[in-house]
């Protein structure tokens, strides 16, 4: 069964924010809100500094804590592993926003909860998410994590270092970060 996920190569990511802009444009994200965010981490003492850009978005976790807490079933997972919100069923109770250990959801000005959808409407057409298509550094790869011959699986397998987003609250994120210069946890100072 298809299990969509993403790999992001942190050595390639230059923090240009094109993915943030592409996402906001493609998905009509309201001003002031963001489905994606860029975490810039700098360590060391000048002049011996090390830095890294890490794009973050909904990880479409396999054991997403946002799904069981939803009282109406508005938050659900599709058969191919994408976690979505049915706006028609969403009451805006914000249980899912509170339950997300990564802070990836927000309340749209219209009152429903919104977040990254892996551009499901594009995926249905056989295309990749807007952030993947836009990235000028080709840092993002999207595909079926359960297909060893998919580009995303091959990219993860060939990376010198790969780790999923940090596991919190039992969630099993499906975004894999490649070639991070930091160990897990060092990113999470803020």
């Amino acid at each position, binding site marked *: 069964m298809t299990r969509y996920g993403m790999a992001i190569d942190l050595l390639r990511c230059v*923090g240009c*924010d094109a993915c*943030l802009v592409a996402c906001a444009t493609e998905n009509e994200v309201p001003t*002031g*809100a*963001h489905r*994606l*965010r*860029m*975490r*810039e*981490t*700098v*360590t*060391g*003492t000048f002049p011996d500094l090390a830095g890294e850009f890490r794009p973050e978005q909904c990880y479409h976790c396999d054991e997403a*804590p946002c*799904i*069981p*807490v*939803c*009282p*109406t*079933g*508005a938050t659900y997972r599709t058969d191919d592993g994408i976690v979505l919100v049915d706006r*028609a*069923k*969403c*009451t*805006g*109770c*914000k*249980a899912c*926003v*509170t*339950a*997300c*250990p990564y*802070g*990836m*959801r*927000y*309340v*749209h000005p*219209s*009152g*429903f*909860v919104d977040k990254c959808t892996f551009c499901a409407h594009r995926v249905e057409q056989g295309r990749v998410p807007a952030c993947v298509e836009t990235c000028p550094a080709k840092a993002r790869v999207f595909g079926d994590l359960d297909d060893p011959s998919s580009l995303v699986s091959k990219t993860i397998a060939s990376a010198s270092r790969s780790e999923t987003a940090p596991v*919190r*609250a*039992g969630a099993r994120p499906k975004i894999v970060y490649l070639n991070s210069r*930091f160990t897990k946890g*060092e*990113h999470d*100072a*803020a």
Partner: protein
Amino acid sequence: MPPETEIIGRNALVIPHPETWGWEVAVYLFLGGLVAGLLIVSAVLRVRSRERYARAIRAADLLGFPLLAIGMLLLWIDLGQRWNAWQFYTTLRLSSPMSWGSWILVVAFAVLVLRASAALPAGVIRRLAPVRWLTWLARRTDGALDLLALVLGPALGAYTGFLLSAIAARPLWDSPWLPVLFLASGLDAAAALLWSVLRAPERRRLTLPLLALTAAELTVLAVYVLGLGTGTAAQREAVALLTQGTIGAIFIVGTVLFGQLVAITAGALELAGRELPKRLERIPAVLQIGGSLALRIAIVYAGLRSAL
């Protein structure tokens, strides 16, 4: 040297911590617990002696409905898509305590409407046909309502604790004692409320049970705090939030000092025959009720700031 982190594209709602639930939810948690306590106390007093505790039972019946109505209104106001609230009643999701709660609230509301109708003055009942009908129904189903209240009361009082404790992402809420604490606090606040609306001779019968409930709540609170304080690093950091800043002041002064210790002291003095002056005698009960509210405020706001 710790990393310096800057986050671009931040949502103010979720960074540095989610500002999802506010005073509306905290006040509802308080009112829900209070009404749950009224349901349970009223049912227990009915079993012990309807005649002896008639005033307390009537006060509980009259107060429950408007308090729960205000609480449910606050919950509705908090929703982002209010006119989708009916969606709660298209399903019952066992994984979601909020889903259980939506159904518990509807059933509790119906029970409280019936109880309130039957407790109204006879003149009001006679004059209003709908109230007459509701009163007739309440009297016909009196025994069933007693049984339902004994089930609904604990359910209403505890489900909000389950709701918060189901959210593992907020370590302050990640405790099996939270439902017990909310239920104990609700019972305590309800007993204090009834105590404060009764006349002196009737109040004396409730002093010892009220003192016992307050002591029980303080014990559960201590177990909850100690459990988190000796838990994971995230839980220890979370419980420390209850001692810092405005939230710390609300918790320590509002919940512990005024809500518990002053109430226990006043109750013990009354049992020892050293009653407070008449003009001050209701103050400990009022502080106790305020302490129950302060507890919910502290736990909601500190919980939202706690993170894994």
